[in-house]
C-alpha cells in the first residue's frame, strides 16, 4: 500500500548537545521546512550526546546529520544545512 501522500514524512536530525553546528542545523532546518514545504515533514531531533547509541540506527558518523528515511533510498545530508538549495535537492522535493 503506497504511503499516504498527505501525511507528513519524518526527518531525523542528529545533533550533539548545544554545539554551534547543531544549533545552526536545527534553526536552518526549521526555516527551510516552514518556508518551502510547510506541513510536509515532521522533524525529530535526536541529541546523541544524551544517548550515543541512537547513532547506530542510521550509522551516523558526523554531526549534525539529517536523515530522510522515506521514500527509499535513505538520504543523509551532513553539515549545518546552511545551503538551502542543497538541502532541497537532496530532499528531492521537486519531483514529488
Amino acid at each position, binding site marked *: 500500500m503506497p504511503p499516504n501522500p498527505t501525511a507528513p514524512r519524518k526527518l531525523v536530525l542528529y*545533533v*550533539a*548537545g*548545544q*554545539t*554551534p*553546528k*547543531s*544549533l*545552526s542545523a*536545527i*534553526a536552518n532546518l526549521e526555516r527551510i521546512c516552514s518556508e518551502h514545504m510547510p506541513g510536509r515533514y515532521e522533524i525529530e531531533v535526536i541529541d*546523541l*550526546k544524551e544517548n*550515543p*547509541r541512537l*547513532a*547506530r540506527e542510521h550509522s*551516523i*558518523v*558526523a*554531526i*549534525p*546529520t539529517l536523515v530522510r528515511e522515506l521514500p527509499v*533510498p535513505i538520504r*543523509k545530508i*551532513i*553539515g*549545518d544545512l546552511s545551503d538551502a538549495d542543497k538541502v532541497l535537492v537532496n530532499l528531492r522535493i521537486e519531483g514529488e
Partner: protein
Amino acid sequence: MSAAEIAELRRRLFEAEETLRAIREGEVDALVVGADDREQIFTIEGESESYRAFMEVMGIGAVALDHARRVLYVNSALARALDLKASAVQGRRFGDLVDADLAAAIDAVLDPAPGSPDAAEVRLRGPEGDRHFLVAARPLRLGTVRGHAVTFTDMTDRVEAEIALQSERAARAVIASANEAVLVCDLNGIVSHANAAARGATRVEPVGHAFAEVIPLEFRRSAGFTGAEDLVAGAIGGASIQGLEALAPAAPIVKDYLVSAAPLQVSDDEIGGCVVTMVDLSQRKAAEKQQTLLMQELDHRVRNTLALVLSISSRTMHSEDTLEGFQKSFTARIQALAATHGLLAERSWADVSVGDIVRSELAPYLQQGGDRVSTEGLSIHVAPRAAIALGLVFHELTTNAVKYGSLSTLGGRVLVRRLEGEPGSTLVEWREVGGPAVAPPTRRGFGQTVIARSLQYTPSGGTEVEFEPSGVVCRISIPTEDVRSAA
C-alpha cells in the same frame, strides 16, 4: 553482484565521501567514535568549553553569536541583565530576544561603518533603575564556527559617578557665580566651599576652618543669635534664618552684611551642613548715612532761608513808602532768591557757576538779544552759600540798573567780568556803560545794604560800589572759602 547490490555500494561510497568532505570543510563539529555499545560523542568545538567557563567567571556580560547572529552561548551575567533564560535562547537570533534599540546598537557594533567606533553605550531598564553598558564586539572562532563575541561592560557606577561629578561642578559654578558671599559648612561648622565674594569677607582662606573663627559676626541683640557659631549651629539644626544685619569686625573692607543661613538638605530627611550667604550692605549703609545728612542739611537750609525771607521782608518794609512798592520789591527779591534756589536744586545743591547766577538774574535782558549784557570769565564755581548771596547782589544791581542805570535806556549796556586781582582773591566786576549820567544817591536804600553786606559773612567777601558818572561800577570779592574752582 546484482545491480541492487552495486547501487547500495555506490550509495554507501557516496555517503562516505560526503562525510569526509563535510569533516574536511568544517561543516560538522562532532563525531561518533567507537562501536558495539561503546559509542561516544567527540565534539570538535576547539576551546569552546574552556571559553565558556572563562566567560562564565568574568564579571561582564557576554554572548557568543554565530555568523547569522544566533546565540551560541550567553553567560549568566548577561542573561540576568537582559532577563533571559540562558538555556532557552541558544540557537535563536539575538536581535529577536532584545528590544529594538538594543538590537540596533548591537548591529552597529557588529558591522561598524568605516570610521565609526566599534563599541556603543546602551541603557537597559531594570527593576532597580537604569543600567549603563558599554557594548563591544570582536570576531570569534569556536572550533569550526566563525562568529562574534559581544561583551556588555557595566558602566553604571562610572556613569553615575560622572553625573554626580557634573552635578557637583554645576553646584560649584552656581556658588562661584553668585555676587553674594556664599559659604557651605559641614555638620561641624567647618567651611567646605567658599566663593570669591566670601573670600573677600575674611583675611584667611576659609575652607577647612570653622566658619565662626574665620568670619566672626556680631548681631543686634534683638536678632536672637549671639554670634556666627550660634547662627551656623541653628542652620545645621534645621532652622532657616533670613536677612539678619550683622557686623563682621574681622573683614578687611566691607564690614556690614545682611546674613542668611539655611540647612544643606542632602536628601529628604538628611542635613549635610549649612549654607551661609552674606550680602554686602556697605552701599545701603552709605546711602542711609547720606540720606540722614541730607535731611539735616535740608532742615538747616530751610531755617536759613526762612530767616533770610524774614530779613528781606523787614528791610523792604523800611525802605519802601507804599504797600504797592513793598509788594513789588519784596516779590522781586523773593523771586531772585527762588531763581538761585532753582539753580542750586538743578545741581543737587552742589556748586554753581557765577555765570549761571548772572544769566539767571539778567535773563530778560539776555533774551532781548543784541549786546546789552556781556559776560567774561565767569566760569567760577561757588558754594551754595555764596551763590545765594551773589543772587541777591546781582538782583539788586539789575533792579538798580533797570530803574536808574544803563538798562534804563536803549543804548546802555552791562559788562560783568572777572578781574585779575591779588593771588588768592576772586574778584568780579559789574560795570554799567552808556546809561544816563550817574550821581551818588542821597539815600541809602535796602538794595545798597544788600549789595554792601550780603558777602560780608566772611572777611574775604564783600563789595565796593562806585557811582562813576559814566555808570555804576561794583567790584565783588567772592569769599575765598566758597570758591570751588576757577576755570
